[in-house]
């Protein structure tokens, strides 16, 4: 059985088009409500992960289990038949969810067991009690657990409109509230002491954030299931973090990613009824996360790799040009190295390659890039000429290198033999202002000219 076999199903395309075109009232409502849920999850999660508390949502969702079972039992006791009302079950979940959070806090502040272990203990305890109570529910006459089991694995597609109105309504309320206290929450996440000093009630704000997180977690239970609901609050903001350093943009982006993954999950799972909606929602989020991990503008792997590469190329290029200059300098005499005169002589590639002991592949790559960029021209079989632009850049590179060398020699107690290597690292990151300052300090012997090397060139490249 494979995906193609699944697709061969005749009604599949029909289902998919129905889901896409939102022909069913129920699909429309579920889509809207779940998208709202995703948005609120991303928004609240953005603050949670900044406070390094993302996994608390996992504890809340597990702690909700005994509450759901207890609420069912009690509701059935007092008015038989009301046990499956979403409101009642959520209320029970809310009570034990908060209780779980409170117990985590108590363990963390009163015993020597710290964060992660406290979370793990509470999770295990509440989940155990919940499992036991669930079997009790199962064995009562009225307790067909099917309805309650949706809380464990989630069942987005089969949500009824009334439940979705509840979920969507609460989500919108959370979104509005989050927007209302955005400034205060950002301050809390970045500088708690400062916020307290400014007169904000940090404890209350923290409580509010926790309350919002608990709320989103619980209304997410039915859609995603308690085992995965933490992903709603965790994956979108973590993914958004790769794109920006600005909290405002990050939280908006997290909300968008959350909304998109929920919407995508609903559409996919209503077209492929065999796929568990919760899992699809989470996996849609995971895919967006992977994309962000690779391409995210601020911290993504690819942009970071590219800027790293660009920097390395710039270094290689200026090293190559400096080597050319230093080969030509003894021929011309150090006073005659005008850009024009540097272009006259041919440079032998073999001689050039041994000056800095480049690996062969790297050397050919550097030469090729330099030729492409119009810094060098091939003049004979293994000989190159500097172009005028190449010569000017070469003079710049050498000037930067030597100015820093002279600075190190005159201003520090560095061993003269180490000066060359010290300059190798710094020359590439000197900006024009720093260069001007260096020249001023060194007495401005040759403004815009190339100072003579303070040490014999033969020693270079060691």
């Amino acid at each position: 059985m494979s995906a193609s076999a699944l697709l061969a199903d005749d009604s599949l395309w029909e289902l998919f088009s129905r889901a896409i075109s939102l022909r069913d009232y129920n699909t429309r409502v579920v889509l809207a409500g779940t998208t709202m849920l995703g948005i609120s999850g991303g928004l609240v999660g953005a603050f949670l992960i900044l406070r390094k508390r993302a996994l608390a949502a996992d504890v809340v969702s597990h702690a909700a289990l005994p509450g759901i079972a207890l609420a069912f039992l009690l509701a059935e006791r007092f008015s038989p038949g009301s046990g499956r009302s979403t409101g009642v079950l959520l209320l029970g979940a809310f009570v034990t969810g908060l209780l779980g959070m409170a117990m985590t806090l108590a363990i963390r502040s009163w015993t020597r067991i710290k964060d992660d272990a406290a979370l793990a203990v509470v999770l295990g305890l509440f989940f155990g009690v919940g499992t036991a109570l669930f079997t009790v529910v199962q064995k009562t006459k009225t307790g067909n657990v099917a309805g309650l089991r949706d809380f464990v694995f989630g069942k987005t597609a089969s949500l009824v409109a009334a439940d979705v109105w509840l979920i969507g309504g609460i989500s919108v309320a959370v979104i509005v509230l989050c927007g209302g206290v955005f400034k205060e929450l950002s301050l809390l996440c970045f500088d708690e002491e400062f916020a307290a000093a400014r007169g904000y009630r940090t404890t209350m704000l923290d409580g509010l954030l926790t309350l919002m997180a608990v709320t989103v977690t619980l209304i997410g239970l039915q859609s995603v299931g308690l085992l995965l609901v933490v992903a709603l609050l965790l994956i979108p903001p973590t993914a958004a973090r790769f794109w920006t350093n600005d909290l405002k943009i990050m939280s908006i982006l997290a909300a968008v990613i959350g909304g998109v993954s929920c919407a995508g999950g609903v559409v996919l799972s209503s077209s492929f009824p065999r796929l568990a909606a919760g899992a699809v929602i989470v996996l849609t989020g995971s895919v967006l996360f992977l994309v962000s991990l690779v391409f995210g503008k601020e911290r993504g792997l690819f942009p970071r790799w590219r800027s790293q590469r660009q920097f390395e190329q710039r270094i290689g290029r200026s090293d190559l040009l400096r080597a050319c200059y230093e080969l030509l300098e003894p021929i011309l005499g150090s006073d005659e190295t005008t850009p024009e005169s540097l272009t006259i002589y041919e440079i032998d590639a073999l001689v050039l390659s041994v000056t800095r002991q480049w690996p062969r592949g790297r050397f050919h790559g550097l030469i090729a890039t330099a030729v492409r960029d119009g810094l060098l021209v091939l003049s004979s079989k293994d000989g190159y000429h500097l172009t005028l632009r190449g010569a000017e850049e070469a003079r710049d590179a050498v000037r930067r290198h030597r100015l820093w060398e002279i600075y190190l020699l005159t201003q520090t107690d560095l061993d003269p033999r180490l000066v060359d290597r010290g300059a190798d690292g710094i020359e590439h990151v000197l900006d024009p202002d720093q260069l001007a300052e260096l020249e001023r300090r060194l007495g401005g012997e040759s403004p815009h000219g190339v100072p003579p090397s303070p040490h014999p060139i033969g020693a270079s490249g060691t």
Partner: protein
Amino acid sequence: MSSRHLVKFNTKQPTTVNSLLTPLQTWTLLDTWIVVIGALAAMACALPGCFLLLRKQSLMGDAISHTSLLGVVGAFFVSHWLVEAKVISPTTELSVRHVAMCVGAIVVGVLSAWLTESLQKLGNVESSAALGVVFTSLFALGLLLIRAFADNVHIDLDCVLYGEIVTAPMETVGKSGVPRAVIVNGFVLLINLLLTILLFKELRLSAFDPALATTLGIPAQTMHYGLMGLTAMTLVAAFESVGSILVIAMLIIPPATAYLLTDRLPRMIGLSLLIGAISAALGHVSALTLPPLISRSIGIADVQDASSAGMMAAAAGFLFVLAMLLGPRYGLAVRVWHRLLLKLRIASEDVLGQLYRMEETAPRVIADADSSDVRQRTSWHRYITTHSWKSRIATWLLMRRGWLTGSHSDARLTDIGREAARTLVRSHRLWESFLAKHFLLGEGRFHESAEQVEHFLDPELLAELDHDLDRPGVDPHGRAIPK
């Protein structure tokens, strides 16, 4: 409603006890095996759990228990594919599948640890967030695969999650009558025990001081992934028989409980094994006895028992809460008690000091005995009514000890009491003098500081102060320092 039932319980106590014990009268060999399986699984989990706890990776167990679902699903696919391809016969499929499940879970367990770590390093993602992203994604993938291809493989999701500890004893090995789950969990426990003993030094060092461990040549990476693999193997062995819920709980709760009780690692490991075993027994017994009680008290049709695995986890949690409250050294009760004792000591000393000062300001001049008496009584009355319950309890205690006489409204120092009070006032005034000599503080500040320090100065320190101040006769306020 609850009060009504409370009354019912109280009046019919014998029946309640009876109904509590009735289910236990049908205790069979099966129940014994359930407890044995639970205890073995709990003990096997507690061993890697101790080190996870110390390495601050407690949630790793929870994460691995989720992700190993992916490994289990993978194992099903592989064994199914092997049968299809006629590499193995359907009869041997089951045993191949068990091995494949174990291997799959270890692979996925180590993989999730590795993914978490590389996400943390490569992507600069905070560790708990990285863990969360990895485990939810992998678990969702596992769920999806199960649902999408459920026709071909029969994986009961409930069984993976909750386990069927109740039916686990039925599957026995050969004719011996020993359940397979006992063998499997016992074997894993044995492996864990052996590895813990053999690698004890390395495990301990890398848990407490990873930097030192690395400098001593213990490969930190290998230890880390080894522990993760071991955890995954333990988890998946226990899964089948007891379910993931028990495993998640038993991995961390017993070690955390033991951690509250002792400071020594070998003792902690021993205790966590013991606590795991006790939780298993306690859990099964309460799974048989509690639910009928609860279900009857809330008036729902009779329920015979609850999930033993769930109750074992709950029992472990119960033991944790007990240790948290009543632990001998770090328990909350002990700490509250010590604080209370300290508060009472301070309150008693304050009462003594107060009475001593009253005697000073109203000396019993024989000629004017009555009026000085009245003055002291009124000022004592004012003191005791304006001060908190602590002073009142302290007064009562001091009277019992014989340091005070008289009544509650008119307390007087006895000779022994006066001796103690004199030492206290001496500490107070010496400290004030010391502050006045060495610190530039406003006069009001001497008293505040002395009020706190007076309770904590021992005789040697007093002698030292006396010497430093050249045996002063009066304090900065001009009052005599008692000898």
